[in-house]
């Protein structure tokens, strides 16, 4: 097994086991979109646009009592080491689905009957954990679009690397590590809206891993709020003052 954690307890990118990669979130960066966000999460660079609520096309998809949420997670051909075929892969179809299901519990879709909201997540550069970064940015973009929401959705993964439970695993830790658990969380409603695991975890490790991922989600949540504050109230606003 490759050694991914050194004697000082530091990981290959120099992080401690409970440390997030550097995260930067910016709200409202695409002019045409009703809401948008850009996130850098480690080496991930992801752009999200939200269009809607708007008329539904094709019309038969419309629901008489609620808005239809549609999500597309897509990776740019240049976002990975080997060029990726631009056609949506099965992996991207699955991630689009679970992203939609992770965001939907946060949205008050009943407020917009007979309409649709489209969320486009474009991964410009990928670095492991892109589904979580995409959900995190999408949630900010939905808030930026002014869609009625019950809560933000903050997402972060934890995993097992060298028999140690660590927060926010990067590309190399994902490939060489033992398990990966991406989680999306509604921080105020205390509800989990995305949970996947691949890799082997004992029951006790499972609980610690979930705990750690939730702590990560809370940190991500702070950064989401800061990004929205910055867009709407300027640089100097403290998050604490508003809430």
């Amino acid at each position: 097994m490759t050694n991914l954690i050194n004697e000082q307890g530091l990981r290959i990118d120099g992080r401690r086991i409970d440390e997030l990669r550097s995260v930067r979130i910016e709200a409202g960066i695409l002019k045409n979109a009703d809401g948008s966000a850009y996130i850098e999460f480690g080496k991930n660079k992801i752009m999200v646009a939200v269009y809607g609520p708007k008329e539904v096309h094709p019309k038969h998809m419309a629901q008489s009592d609620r808005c239809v949420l549609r999500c597309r997670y897509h990776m740019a051909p240049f976002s990975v080491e080997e060029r990726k075929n631009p056609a949506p892969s099965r992996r991207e179809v699955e991630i689009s689905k679970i992203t939609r299901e992770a965001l939907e519990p946060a949205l008050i879709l009943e407020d917009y009957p007979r309409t649709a909201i489209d969320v486009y997540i474009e991964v410009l550069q990928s670095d492991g954990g892109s589904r979580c970064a995409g959900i995190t940015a999408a949630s900010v973009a939905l808030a930026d679009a002014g869609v009625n929401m019950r809560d933000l959705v903050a997402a972060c993964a934890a995993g097992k690397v060298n028999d140690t439970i660590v927060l926010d695993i990067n590309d190399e830790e994902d490939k060489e590590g033992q398990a990966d658990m991406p989680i999306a969380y509604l921080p105020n409603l205390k509800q989990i809206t995305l949970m996947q695991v691949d890799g082997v975890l004992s029951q006790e490790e499972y609980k610690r891993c979930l705990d750690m991922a939730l702590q990560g989600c809370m940190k991500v949540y702070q950064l989401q709020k800061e990004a929205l504050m910055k867009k709407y109230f300027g640089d100097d606003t403290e998050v604490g003052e508003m809430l």
Partner: protein
Amino acid sequence: MSAIRKSNMIVEHLRRAQMQELLAEGKRLDGRALTETRPMKIETNIIQKANGSARVTLGNTQVIAGVKVSTDEPYEGLENKGILICSAEVLPLASAYSEPGPPDEDAIELARVVDRGIRESEMIDLEKLALVEGKIVYAIFVDVSILNIDGNLFDAASYAAVSALLTAKLPKLKIEDGKVVNTGELMPAPIRTIPVSVTIAKIGDAIIADPTSEEEAVMEGRVTMTTDAEGNVCAVQKGGTGAFTVEQIHHIVDTAIAKGQEIRPVLKGVADGSL
């Protein structure tokens, strides 16, 4: 192909209230207890042309899995390992709402979740399936066809795939003068553990195992959890538009591990019966 009906499930939604009332008393429409699974039947070696096969009926859900074996170049970075690919297809004959065409997101998710459970549990010791490291390895394909839909396709498809692999007889191949030669002998697949997929659905505050189509139509969400023989969690997938509390997740982990231990002997029996 559409695995479940997506819109206008009016009748199911009307029954939601009735279902929730029953669930509050710990009962279900079909009379089962909350974490009781439906009767399951597994038949193996039903397709002679396949290297392994199994039909699983779980209540009214019916699926069939077949194993086919060939050789291929190994994947980059996995030069010393055989290839295992598990896929699932929802056939148009499986319900009034399944249509021909390319797989939709439900069918893709189904195939990927079944594959993930088997892969991540390392059920098959793939290192034993390399013929010439870096050059040629066994490629094992497990294809699951969904024949009749009445909920919980994830578990039914997983049990069928696992049963087909447990009873598969692979051709014993060897390399002679750089070419693959079939010795004519057969061997079992190198099995390490038996993964068991357990799907739990949430309806209101109730947590139920092995949901039917009717229950899936009104559920807020589901969690499919695959555990191995040691009680480790190997793969998890949350689906549906609902959310779960941390306590509910812990309850689901406990239930999935306990149910897994109940179902594993059944699958093990399948393996033993064929040897």
